[in-house]
């Protein structure tokens, strides 16, 4: 337990620690090392939520038990926490939302930057109208991602007893749509009440888990419906109708009313008046004037998009209701329950507060009922908030559902509450994406979100939420690639964190490296990508993939390491090496040589390689031609100024066989003189303090000298 100090009550404790916490869960770690191990552990954070545990064996046991066992093991532990929203616990579904929101978000940011640039150019404020169009487009795209409104194909034979279609709405989508209604969809502001009616009809089911709701009542009623003989005798039937009517689900109301027993052919004659009354209520309900542009198919009502037209129709409609209410037909209706309940429905339509209150289940439903039947013109957040408070008083709840809290925050015009609610109930994804809607909603919200704050380390709330979301994305192997899009939109810390993110990726994994390079290319992070290439290069090199190692170091332009590799190659000079390592050595010279700008000594190495090759042939079989080629290569090397002085003696010592060639002298007089001069130069150089002695047998110098002298004599004789 890191950070836990012995005196927890002491002022020296960094993290407040309460000893009352439950005992920690113990997991067994399978590291695969054979016991006994004296565990030496190193624990560090790996990518995302993974913990990297390195288990070392103690050096003694490691040395005792043969070489085939590893000296330790690195285990990556994935820690999976609770998902922030139980609804999106399905990780794959959540990732799909994350993937899908990338394009709309990036598109909106591009638009924003373009507009800001344009505004700067013209020294004017950006065009609000145009901007809100983009925000709405963005909002719609995100919303469609959260789940489609399932328009199930209309079945040809509709079951008359199916009142409600079951769908599973998501509260994430419900919350997003609320934000859209209030902040993004400026065009439709005059129709907010009707939009809320639609919203509730889509999402009332979400409240069911916590509080009773009309939706739940209808679901229960539908289950009972199959067993009912004469529905009009059942209180549940009338309750279902009045509830559906109160929240404006007129299609359901009409459908239910037509289940009334008086519609049955054998009853029609006896219950003619009763049937007429039922039908009259159904028609009145279906003709209700609605203050909106249009209605989705299947929904009932008559639309008016103009306030005065609506007002006239509304008055006329209410007059019709009142007229029906006072009609004499009621006296002729013999079915008492029908009479009473129909009258109750009329009261609902007329906006009787207590009737509405008893027909609805929770305050949001009552609130919607008020919009529909009492105050269709409610506008302005302040008056909407007052109305909401009134409804809460009439229908109090012990704890508000998260969507209720969100509605209240919005109506209160309290951006902080809305933010807190988004963050608490819907997680980092929601808040990172919803800030775009909030800032589009009002200037105050924009100031609040974009103001740089000292308590956040100098960044704005908006940026901090984006950074948090980027962290969430970074913690998964499949989503880290999209985190850069969010980071790059963060002015203060974005680039810095992006660099850290890229550094944290395992660059030795070739696919990750290529992804890394691609991201760096997009955001001009050349130094980051070259560092990743260096890491990859060194990793490949260490694991024996010398080709890949050199390739990546060359890509990174890492002269230092390439030179060091070249220097290592010099170590072979003058040593006898096996065929296999010669092959390796030769291959490396090839690799390094393919890039001309590296290591100046390579020219020497190439020549040395040629020399060494012919020398090897000499050793394999005694061929005079091979020996001659070797001599030529030797002379070429010795003449070349790029041949380092320290290799002169080893080269000559290597070629002793050539100098002492049995059949005839291989070097002519001038060639021998050249070598003798070099030898002389060396003995002078030996006097200098910076001279480095080569590791050769002590007699090397003298045996070369003797061989050269002999050769000179033989060469003179021959010439």
């Amino acid at each position, binding site marked *: 337990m890191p950070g836990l100090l012995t005196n927890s009550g002491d002022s020296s404790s960094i993290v407040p620690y309460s000893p009352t916490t439950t005992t920690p869960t113990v997991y067994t770690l399978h590291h695969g090392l054979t016991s006994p191990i004296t565990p030496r552990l190193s624990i560090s954070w790996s990518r995302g939520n993974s913990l990297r545990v390195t288990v070392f064996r103690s050096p003694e046991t490691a040395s005792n038990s043969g070489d085939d066992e590893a000296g330790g093991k690195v285990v990556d532990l*994935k820690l999976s926490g609770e998902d922030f929203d139980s609804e999106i616990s399905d*990780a*794959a579904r959540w*990732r*799909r939302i994350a*993937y899908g929101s*990338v*394009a709309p978000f990036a598109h909106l940011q591009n638009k924003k930057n373009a507009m800001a640039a344009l505004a700067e150019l013209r020294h004017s404020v950006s065009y609000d109208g145009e901007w809100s169009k983009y925000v709405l487009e963005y909002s719609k795209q995100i919303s469609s991602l959260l789940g489609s409104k399932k328009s199930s194909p209309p079945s040809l034979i509709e079951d008359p007893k199916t009142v409600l279609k079951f769908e599973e709405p998501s509260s994430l989508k419900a919350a997003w749509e609320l934000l859209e209604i209030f902040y993004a969809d400026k065009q439709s502001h005059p129709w907010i009440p009707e939009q809320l009616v639609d919203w509730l009809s889509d999402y009332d089911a979400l409240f069911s888990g916590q509080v009773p709701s009309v939706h739940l009542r209808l679901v229960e009623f539908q289950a009972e419906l199959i067993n009912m003989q004469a529905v009009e005798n059942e209180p549940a039937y009338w309750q279902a109708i009045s509830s559906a009517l109160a929240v404006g689900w007129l299609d359901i109301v009409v459908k239910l009313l037509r289940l009334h027993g008086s519609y049955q052919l054998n009853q029609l004659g006896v219950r003619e008046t009763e049937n007429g009354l039922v039908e009259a209520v159904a028609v009145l309900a279906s003709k209700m004037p609605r203050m909106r542009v249009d209605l989705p198919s299947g929904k009932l009502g008559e639309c008016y998009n103009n306030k005065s037209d609506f007002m006239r129709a509304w008055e006329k409609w209410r007059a019709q209701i009142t007229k029906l209410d006072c009609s004499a037909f009621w006296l002729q209706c013999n079915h008492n329950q029908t009479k009473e309940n129909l009258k109750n429905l009329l009261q609902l339509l007329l906006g009787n507060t207590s009737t509405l209150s008893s027909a609805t289940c929770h305050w949001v439903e009552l609130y919607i009922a008020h919009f529909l039947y009492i105050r269709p013109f409610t506008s302005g957040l302040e008056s909407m908030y007052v109305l909401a408070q009134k409804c809460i008083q009439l229908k109090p709840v012990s704890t508000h559902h998260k969507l209720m809290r969100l509605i209240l925050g919005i109506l209160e015009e309290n951006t902080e509450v809305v933010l807190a609610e988004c963050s608490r109930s819907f997680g980092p994804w929601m808040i990172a994406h919803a800030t775009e809607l909030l800032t589009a909603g009002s200037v105050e919200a924009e100031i609040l979100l974009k103001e740089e704050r000292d308590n956040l380390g100098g960044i704005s709330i908006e940026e901090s939420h984006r950074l948090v979301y980027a962290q969430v994305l970074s913690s*998964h*192997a*499949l989503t880290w*690639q999209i985190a850069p899009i969010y980071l790059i939109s963060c002015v203060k810390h974005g680039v810095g964190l992006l660099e850290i993110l890229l550094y944290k990726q395992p660059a030795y994994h*070739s696919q990750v490296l*290529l*992804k890394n390079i*691609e991201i760096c*290319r997009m955001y001009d992070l050349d130094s980051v990508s070259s560092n990743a290439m260096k890491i990859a290069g060194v990793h*490949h090199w260490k*694991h*024996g*993939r*010398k*080709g*890949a190692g050199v*390739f990546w170091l*060359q*890509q990174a332009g890492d002269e230092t390491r390439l030179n060091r590799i070249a220097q290592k190659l010099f170590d072979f000079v003058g040593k006898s090496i096996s065929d296999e390592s010669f*092959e*390796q050595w030769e*291959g*490396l010279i*090839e*690799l390094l040589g*393919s890039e001309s700008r590296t290591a100046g000594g390579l020219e020497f190495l190439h020549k040395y390689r040629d020399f060494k090759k012919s020398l090897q042939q000499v050793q394999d079989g005694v061929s005079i031609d091979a020996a001659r080629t070797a001599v030529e290569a030797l002379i070429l090397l010795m003449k070349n100024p790029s041949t380092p002085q320290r290799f002169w003696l080893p080269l000559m010592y290597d070629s002793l066989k050539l100098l002492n060639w049995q059949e005839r002298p291989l070097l002519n007089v001038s060639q021998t003189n050249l070598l003798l001069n070099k030898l002389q130069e060396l003995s002078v150089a030996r006097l200098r303090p910076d001279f480095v002695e080569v590791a050769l047998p002590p007699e090397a110098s003298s045996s070369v000298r003797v061989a050269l002298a002999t050769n000179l004599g033989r060469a003179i004789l021959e010439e």
Partner: protein
Amino acid sequence: MEPDPQTLAQFHILPQPTYVDSLRFLPPLSAFDRHIAVASFNSDTSTPTLSLNSITPPTPTTPPTLTPQSSFTPSSRITSLKTTQTPQQNPLIAASTATGSVHILFPNSVDGSFESEVSVPDNVLHLGRVTCLDLLESGLECVSVGEDGRVNVISVGDSGLDYRRVVDGKGLVSYSAVRWASPVEFATGGLGNCVQWWDLRRGGTPVSQFKGNWAQGATSGIIHSIDIHSSRKHTCLAGGSNGNVFAWDLRRPQQPIVLSGVDNGETATCISESDVWEVQYDTFMSASDHAKLSSKGVLPAMICSEDGMLAVIKQGEEPTELLAENCAINCFDIDRHNPSDVICGLEWESIAFLTRT
């Protein structure tokens, strides 16, 4: 981006619960069934899977559906997946893994289950990652290449798998792509845009090679994929880093024909600047395309790239974009028996199915 209705008749994205590493069409097992093999990786549980799915083609009203029929768990993540395409015989699926093993699977032609599986375990053929393998059309031999610089030929026989090493680069080279040209010849691609031609009759050194440093001074790249058309065995189609796609003609080994990419300001168009993950000759051609084909030109090629492109490149013409996605397209396959249909594996855990007009 919405795909262009001019080029695509159908376009569907099928979300998958796992990352798609590779996918291939199988030849029709029977008249009505179509199957695809999908190599996927679940990063939450770190399990790789090779599954055989039957695919129901889309109708105007319904999207296509993939139904998993059987699955196999290889020893580690699949790096390369190939299938034989001869319709008369039972198909073969070959897969290589990140830990050096190679698996050969025999799907049952009746119910789409895996009849049997033979494999060479980890670290026998290759040390570490097998980057690519290719299966001979006869299904008898399979060539594999790896980061370790080894090239192996695996024989698929009745008694199991047998292999021989063509060359061991001992880490001095790393290969990243391989493709058969004939039962005795194949081409490999690797680091530094290098393409080599091998002839098994001529031992363990490449017969011809091309060091692709035409973008002198600029960063070099990696060949990710090679294709060779059976009618033009002397030309390799290669695609790799920096959007490079070129045709390498053995008869003119020092002058590759650049089809796309940065070419010292030369004429070739550049469809993408990021990695080209896969190249395949496009077998879907209209009659006018056939007429235009000269015997000299390079056949049309389909490519997919890191920046989300799926496109067809024809020599000397503007490339045709089929898809421009927001995420990388990691792999694709053209249905050999129904070449208008293409499937691709998208980075964002999904498979795209498209039908061309």
